[in-house]
């Protein structure tokens, strides 16, 4: 059989079918389905005998051909179908084959173009590394970007100012160590023994707790009071010296 010369060079089932049709000198618009189906099946059988793995699509087209063939065998001139022309069972396949053939032609044309263009030569790019080592730095700026950045700065500055104002107002209310020491001395005068915790009654801010404690340390240094702590983290007891009111606070 003639088609054997092409063997496995077919690009797909359509390619094979188009080849068989053309080889049999049939019109693509009037395919003799039973003849072509036979040739197609023979080809596929032949391939399988040679242990050539055919893509599944070849079998799908085989099924389609058989289906068309069987439809062609059905009686077609039924009077109840008069209103419309009965569709030729081959028409869908023919349409596909024609489209495929068109692209096969384009492929042929592209091959020609490829051939022609392979006769034209270009030169490679020169070695440009001497230029590419130090790129030009281009500053990307526009007015809106500049103004937006400035606006963000102005807003943020305003915010910082507000925060700063709050911060200093709170600070002004806070007591200095000197004032606290004087306050403590007045409180301790006339007392013998007092718990440190009692000094913190009504003291809310961390700052004031620390201030009280640091002031107490100062009083210890001045020997106005002694402190005792029996256990770690235990209660601190303050023992007040008699001369507490005569001791001078440094720098006060």
């Amino acid at each position, binding site marked *: 059989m003639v088609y054997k010369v092409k063997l496995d*060079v077919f*690009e*797909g*089932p*359509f*390619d094979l079918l188009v080849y068989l049709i053309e080889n049999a000198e049939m019109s693509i618009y009037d395919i003799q389905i039973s003849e072509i189906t036979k040739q197609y099946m023979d080809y596929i059988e032949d391939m399988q005998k040679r242990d050539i793995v055919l*893509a599944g*699509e070849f079998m799908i*087209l085989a099924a389609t051909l058989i289906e068309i063939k069987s439809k062609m065998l059905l009686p077609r001139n039924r009077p109840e179908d008069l209103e419309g022309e009965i569709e030729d069972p081959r028409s869908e396949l023919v349409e*596909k084959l024609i*489209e*495929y053939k*068109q*692209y*096969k*032609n*384009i*492929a*042929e*044309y*592209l*091959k*020609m*173009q*490829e*051939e*022609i*263009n*392979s*006769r*034209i*030569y*270009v*030169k*490679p*790019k*020169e070695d*440009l590394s001497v230029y590419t080592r130090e790129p030009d730095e281009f500053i990307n700026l526009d007015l809106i970007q500049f103004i937006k950045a400035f606006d963000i700065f102005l807003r943020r500055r305003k915010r910082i100012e507000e925060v700063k104002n709050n911060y200093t107002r709170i600070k002004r209310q806070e007591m200095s160590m000197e004032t606290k020491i004087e306050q403590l001395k007045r409180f301790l005068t006339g007392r013998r023994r007092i718990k440190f915790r009692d000094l913190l009654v009504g003291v809310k801010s961390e700052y004031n707790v620390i201030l009280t404690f640091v002031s107490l340390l100062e009083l210890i240094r001045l020997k106005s009071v002694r402190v005792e702590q029996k256990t770690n983290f235990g209660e601190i007891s303050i023992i007040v010296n008699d001369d507490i009111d005569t001791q001078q606070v440094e720098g006060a």
Partner: protein
Amino acid sequence: MISKKTIKSAFESMMFVWGEPLDVKVAADVFNIDWKEAYDYFKELQEEYESEGRGIRIREIDKSFQFCTYIENDEYIQRLCTPVKEKRLTQSALEVLAIIAYKQPVTKGEIESIRGIKCDRVIEGLLKKNLIEEVGRGTGIGRPILYGTTKLFLEKFGFRDIKELPDIEDITNIVEEAEETDTEQISLEI
């Protein structure tokens, strides 16, 4: 003010070092001139090399210009040296490329339905060769990848731009005529 003569001369130098097709826009930017002006200069240069019958020519590819050899000197170049020829595309690659070139942007599914066979491998190969590229996503189920041809495709097949591809209807005539007139010049792989 830089003279037209200087700019045209610079364009020649620039194309020469660049080797690859030089984008008109990139060339125009070097001189801060507008695109149309630069394009006209390139066209003038192209015309000059042609009318003087030079052995090097300027070809236009997708709004870029490139120096190349005059096609008819192919024979002498081959006598001088054996230039490295790239491997020709296979029949299936050419078919898939044909479908993509004419139907782009196109999905793999559409290509396969025209060819009646799977073509993942072929598409992969064409992508690797940079002859096609992904150009977006379709709107259908699974948002399938859309393929289109590249600038390299135009270069390899000698098209100025994709619009230069002949009408599908004319193709058969072109192919048949070419086969009749110079079968001896086309080496067909059989």
